[in-house]
């Protein structure tokens, strides 16, 4: 059953140096503050996994948390580049960043295979794309019925998956709604699961479009209101589009970035502990 704890202890317990860590959330419900706590606790050599690495991964990469990135689209949505990600890949700053690069369809199916305890998933994908030749987690498989050749992608099973959700109850059952992305698969594929939530309630009232992740597939729940900012939590906040634009300026320069991170992350109180 899920333990109700605080973010600092949850990260200390569940995220270790060298782990394969997925902070998932497709534009919506991105667990930003959990990423900040991982930075504050100076985790190193993480393999960061995520379909759409955005600001929080730019921050983690720029702060030297990651050794490798497994992803399918790494940009600042609606704005442009992730400058820290680019700097790491192009110039090895602050450290070289290995990449394993996929399409969205490939990444999504890698999580599906992981959640299904299968070693791989089959899709029609990567046809004619240069991606297949670049990745050891893309291969092919032949249909035993038709003889067709299809793409195969290796299962993803993170050591830890972290997601942000709207609510949990006191037992640690988690409820989320709105755009759900690949969170359920990322949770069920993981060995350990940390969920940050906007609030903890007595009872999870049924809601249209909501799913419930039972407490027994969640390792720890921490209350972190606003934990998705500048992403959002439907019913609690709206996307801070202005901050996504500002990030372009903050992150473009190494010193500006470092100063901002020092002030806003390293020296920030963990509001939740």
């Amino acid at each position, binding site marked *: 059953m899920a333990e109700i704890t605080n973010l600092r202890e949850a990260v200390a317990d569940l995220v270790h140096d060298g782990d394969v860590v997925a902070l998932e959330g497709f534009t919506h419900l991105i667990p930003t503050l959990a990423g900040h706590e991982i930075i504050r606790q100076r985790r190193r050599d993480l393999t960061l996994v995520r379909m759409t690495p955005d600001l929080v991964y730019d921050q983690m990469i720029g702060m030297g948390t990651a050794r490798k990135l497994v992803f399918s689209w790494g940009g600042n949505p609606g704005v442009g580049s992730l400058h820290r990600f680019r700097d790491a890949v192009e110039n090895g700053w602050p450290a070289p960043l290995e990449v394993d690069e996929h399409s969205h369809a490939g990444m999504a199916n890698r999580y599906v295979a992981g959640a299904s305890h299968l070693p791989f998933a089959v899709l029609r994908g990567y046809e004619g794309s240069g991606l297949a030749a670049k990745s050891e987690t893309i291969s092919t498989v032949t249909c035993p019925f038709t003889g067709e050749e299809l793409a195969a992608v290796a299962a993803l099973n993170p050591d830890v998956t972290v997601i942000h959700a709207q609510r949990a109850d006191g037992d640690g059952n988690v409820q989320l709604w*709105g755009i759900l992305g690949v969170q359920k698969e990322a949770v069920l594929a993981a060995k350990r699961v940390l969920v940050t939530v906007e609030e903890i309630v007595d009872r999870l009232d049924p809601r249209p479009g909501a799913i419930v992740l039972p407490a027994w597939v969640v390792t720890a729940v921490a209350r972190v209101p606003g934990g998705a900012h500048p992403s959002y939590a439907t019913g609690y906040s709206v996307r*801070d589009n202005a901050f996504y634009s500002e990030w372009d300026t903050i992150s473009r320069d190494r010193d500006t970035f470092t100063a901002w991170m020092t002030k806003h992350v390293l020296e920030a109180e963990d509001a939740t502990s």
Partner: protein
Amino acid sequence: MSTSTIDWTADEMMTVASARALAGARTCFVGIGLPSRAANLARLTDNPGLVLIYESGTLGAKPSVLPLSIGDGELADTADSIVSVPEIFNYWLQGGRCDVGFLGAAQVDRFGNLNTTSIARGDGRPDLRLPGAGGAPEIAAHAGKVLIVVRHSDRVFVEKLSFITSVGFGTGTGFRERLGLRGAGPTQVITDLGILEPDPESRELTLVAVHPGVTVDRVREATGWPLKVDGDLATTDAPTERELTTMRELQARTKEVHRART
């Protein structure tokens, strides 16, 4: 169409031409940015029944303002249905439910292949890192047909891609057929200068229309390979007043809402 008496920009012409290209389409798998702007304009003008599908899992989104990201709350709030990301790619895109895929790109070659991964800069400089593939490789493969919208320049329309992220017609005739791809591939590339379509035989992108006031030479200069021009070269109809007004209102609403929210 009654030509507008008000001025318009090349970017507006591009969006209007892109929206028109969606006439008759039932479902469109939409990339964020220019494709999303064009698809929403189509929905607000000639194709009100157009079903917009975003890779965040929103089926039938009817945003009143343009989303800034692929997963804005506006898309979720106005969708007929929200499904998971694995489902949107497996059941809806790969399943063959998307008539049109609408893409942008950083580089396009003469066969409509797309690069959104990285660009070689030469001089010993490291490759310029782009965001990557996202949903594009499978949209390019599986959508009934693909529309591409990009601004025209010889940095975009290049002789040779630094990397093939998403396939168009590959090396030309028969390539898609050999891969067994379901979709027809890129049937139009719409730019701020004109419209390119694949030659029915060679599959090489050919200039079939220029926008009003644009010369063929100007398009050729902005294209990194010797561009073929169709014998029946057309001139695009200028934006109508309705198209312009609708688009500008959409953008004004968008600006206002996004300012108010932040």
